[in-house]
Structures are given as structure tokens and as C-alpha cells.
């Protein structure tokens, strides 16, 4: 490899791919350094929501950032289709979180109220609906459903096709995709980044760290910080294909464009994505059938676990290095929801050479406080 790349993006998952696509659109010569097929890959394990209603408690700027990306998603889906012919099946009918007890509904209402009570949060509607109102939109709910929250900004997508569409578009735009290039070292020498991998060395004028939880290790190489946790594991169940019965995604359950029902949103502290905990699958399946009793007869055809990309406070990190000018870091849990922002907002900032003040709230400097004990 020679110094033919303006920008090297480290990580070829949804975050890296969206940023690389945005950079390529600006005319930059881009390389993506990726691991191989056995990489821990949230882009292949995620739940595929484009989700707004429950985000941002603790960082009000995250609410507006999320809504902006949700609003830009129709453009992203349309442009990817134009470039690749692939329909990523973006739908934004609004989404639900359902409650199976009065206590769950009260907790949900409280969370929504606290999000909206923060200073600077833009106004957007999240309705707390009783059982009757939910049943008008979700006629198949079971008797235990007491109500739920609904937000018209929520949607979902076919995330595997999104992942593929980005990579098809990247190839068409001449981005160099370099698999088996797990990064071992990054050196900043005379204004150029020399990136060491087992396969080869890559030289670039700028570097973007988009390697998920591995950003924690990489950030220190370029004078940045990315406090991540590599132990936020979720599990998903997938049923056989069913006739369409669900026209809105739920935060815990959705019917895909291909008819399967995905059931997810579990959490346990674990970092191995090669196995799963059956007791958690059982709870997920039980809650799904209490929400939609006809699912009790559906076969589960696939299950998997996946380790979420998660910063230590759960909010995105976008930052630029002062020690190594031209080094940027991007990590977030919501690589699907925020894909439009990464392509249309973050990438142009990186192309120009500096992050804007409007993403200053997402700097990792927010972690620079003394631990109390």
C-alpha cells in the first residue's frame, strides 16, 4: 500500500460504512480497513430499528441528534436504492413499546416524561396509550397487554440489506475495502497516518476510528479516548415466516419485510457472542406470546446473541484528536438509526477536517471527571 488514500476508515460495519460512503460522496479517496468474517459484528446481529421514542435520557442533545437522523432516513434509503438497486425496506409507521402490567406502563410513562423534561429537548410526540387505543392499531394483542407508548417517528429497516447496500455502493464509488486488516498500530508521522496491520501497512492523511468496542484500544494510539464496555450482550429469536399481522415495529418485537418475527431487546453482562442463555430466550419468547398469543404456535428458526457496541454511558462518541490532527473517532450503539447522520453529517465534517460545534456534546471529554471512589 502507498499513500494513495486521503482517509482510512478503520472498521467496515454500519458506522464505518456509512461514514466511508459519505466521505466518498465528497470526492475523497477512501480505504476501509476491516477485520474478517469472524469479527464481532453488531451490523449482522442487530435488531434493525430506526428508533427515537426512548433515547436521550441523560444527554438531551442525543434526542435531537436521533430525530435528525430519523428524519434523514427516507433520503438515505432512496439514495442507496438509486445507487445500488437494493431496497433496504425502510418503513416509518411509528413504533410501540407494550406493557404487560400497570407497573410496566407507569415505568414507561415516567421514562418518557423524564426524557421530555430535560432542558433543550425538542418537542416530539410520544403518546401513552391505554389498551383500547393500542388494540385499534395492533388488533392481535393478548389480554395481558395493558397499554403502551407510541411514537410516530419510529421505524425499522432490513439491516442486513442496509449493510450490503452500503458495501455495494462503496465498491461502486471506488472505495478500497481491505478485509483481514485488523489494525495493530497507528503512527502519526509528518502529517500522515501509518497504519500497521498483519496484511500490510496503509498510509492516509486522515484516520477515522469506527471499529465498535475496539475503538477503546485504537483511540489511545492517536491521542483519543473511547471508553467502551465490551459486555452488553443481547439475544434475538427469529420465527418462521408468517402472514403479515404487525404493521408497526415494537422495541422488543417486529415483523420483517420477509415475514419473520424478530424478538429481542434482552440484556445480560457477557462478552462472548458464540453462545446464548436459554433462560433469557425463554423470557423473550414468553413475553412475545403474551403480547401476541398466536405466536405461541410459531416455530423459532434462528437464535443468536450479539455484543452491543456500547460506550460507558450509552451515548455516542464523536471526537477529533488534538495530539494527532486528522484523527477522528465515532462510536455508538445505534449504527442503524444514526446511519443517515453518519453519512450526511459526520462524514462531511471529517472531510472538511473538523467536527462542528453542534456535535460537541458527544465529545469523550464528558468522561473527564474524577471518579468519586
Amino acid at each position: 500500500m502507498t499513500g494513495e488514500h486521503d482517509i482510512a476508515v478503520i472498521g467496515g460495519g454500519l458506522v464505518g460504512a456509512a461514514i466511508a460512503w459519505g466521505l466518498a460522496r465528497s470526492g475523497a479517496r477512501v480505504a476501509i480497513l476491516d477485520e474478517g468474517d469472524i469479527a464481532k459484528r453488531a451490523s449482522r446481529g442487530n435488531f434493525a430499528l430506526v428508533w427515537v421514542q426512548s433515547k436521550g435520557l441523560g444527554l438531551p442533545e442525543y434526542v435531537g441528534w436521533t430525530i435528525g437522523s430519523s428524519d434523514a432516513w427516507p433520503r438515505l434509503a432512496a439514495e442507496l436504492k438509486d445507487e445500488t438497486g437494493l431496497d433496504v425496506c425502510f418503513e416509518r409507521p411509528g413504533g410501540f413499546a407494550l406493557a404487560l402490567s400497570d407497573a410496566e406502563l407507569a415505568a414507561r410513562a415516567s421514562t418518557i416524561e423524564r426524557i421530555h423534561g430535560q432542558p433543550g429537548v425538542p418537542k416530539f410526540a410520544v403518546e401513552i396509550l391505554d389498551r383500547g387505543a393500542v388494540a385499534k392499531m395492533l388488533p392481535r394483542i393478548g389480554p395481558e397487554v395493558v397499554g403502551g407508548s407510541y411514537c410516530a417517528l419510529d421505524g425499522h429497516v432490513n439491516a442486513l440489506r442496509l449493510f450490503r447496500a452500503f458495501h455495494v455502493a462503496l465498491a461502486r464509488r471506488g472505495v478500497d475495502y481491505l478485509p483481514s486488516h485488523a489494525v495493530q498500530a497507528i503512527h502519526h508521522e509528518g502529517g500522515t497516518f501509518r497504519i500497521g496491520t498483519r496484511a500490510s501497512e496503509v498510509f492516509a492523511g486522515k484516520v477515522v476510528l469506527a471499529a465498535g468496542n475496539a475503538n477503546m484500544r485504537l483511540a489511545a494510539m492517536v491521542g483519543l479516548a473511547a471508553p467502551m464496555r465490551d459486555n452488553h450482550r443481547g439475544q434475538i429469536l427469529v420465527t418462521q415466516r408468517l402472514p403479515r399481522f404487525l404493521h408497526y415495529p415494537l422495541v422488543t418485537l417486529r415483523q420483517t419485510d420477509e415475514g419473520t418475527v424478530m424478538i429481542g431487546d434482552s440484556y445480560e453482562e457477557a462478552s462472548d457472542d458464540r453462545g446464548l442463555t436459554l433462560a433469557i430466550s425463554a423470557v423473550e419468547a414468553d413475553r412475545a406470546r403474551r403480547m401476541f398469543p398466536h405466536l405461541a404456535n410459531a416455530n423459532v428458526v434462528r437464535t443468536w446473541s450479539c455484543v452491543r457496541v456500547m460506550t460507558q454511558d450509552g451515548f455516542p462518541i464523536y471526537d477529533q484528536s488534538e495530539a494527532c490532527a486528522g484523527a477522528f473517532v465515532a462510536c455508538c450503539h445505534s449504527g442503524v438509526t444514526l446511519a443517515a447522520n453518519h453519512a450526511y453529517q459526520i462524514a462531511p465534517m471529517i472531510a472538511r477536517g473538523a467536527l462542528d460545534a453542534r456535535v460537541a456534546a458527544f465529545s469523550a471529554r464528558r468522561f473527564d471527571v474524577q471518579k468519586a471512589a
Partner: protein
Amino acid sequence: MFRRLPDAAGAVVAITIDGLPFAARAGDSVAAALLLAGRMRTGATAVSGKPRAPYCGMGVCFECLVTIDGVESRQGCLVAVRDGMRIETQLEKAEPGT
């Protein structure tokens, strides 16, 4: 369309397909028996209702879903025939349990 290999052996196994008797052989999968019985259509997709039949034969594609002894949507290619087995095709787009 499908024929048994000339050297194929195995005891006869009496099954029914949609109520009609069929003589399968020990070792046949349900999917193989359906194809040997000339059933080129064994199911319908839940999404579009388009016809389906056994395809991959190795448990991956889920196109051979049939009802076996009353249990719906089993993968015919992964179940061996047994004497007295009742197989019903799932030609109508339908939900499980309906």
C-alpha cells in the same frame, strides 16, 4: 419427475400424504417421499402465497414445511418417514394454529 435410484433398497414404509396412501422406503426423508410421490407443490409462502416445494434438502431453506402427525410447519427434509406417518401439505397461506 423424480425416480428412485435402481439400487435403492429399504423396507416399505406405509405413510399417507393428504390422506392418500404412499409406499415410502425406510431411510426416506418426508421431503424425498413427497417428491417421489410426484408432489411438486407442498406449501405456500406466508408472505406472498406463492407455491413452494422441497428445495435444499438439508435443513437450510425452510421451503419444505409440512404438517407431520398433526404438528405444523416441520421441515420435511429433516424428518425420516415412519410407518403410519400422516403428512399434510400446507398449500394455503396460513398462520400456525389456524
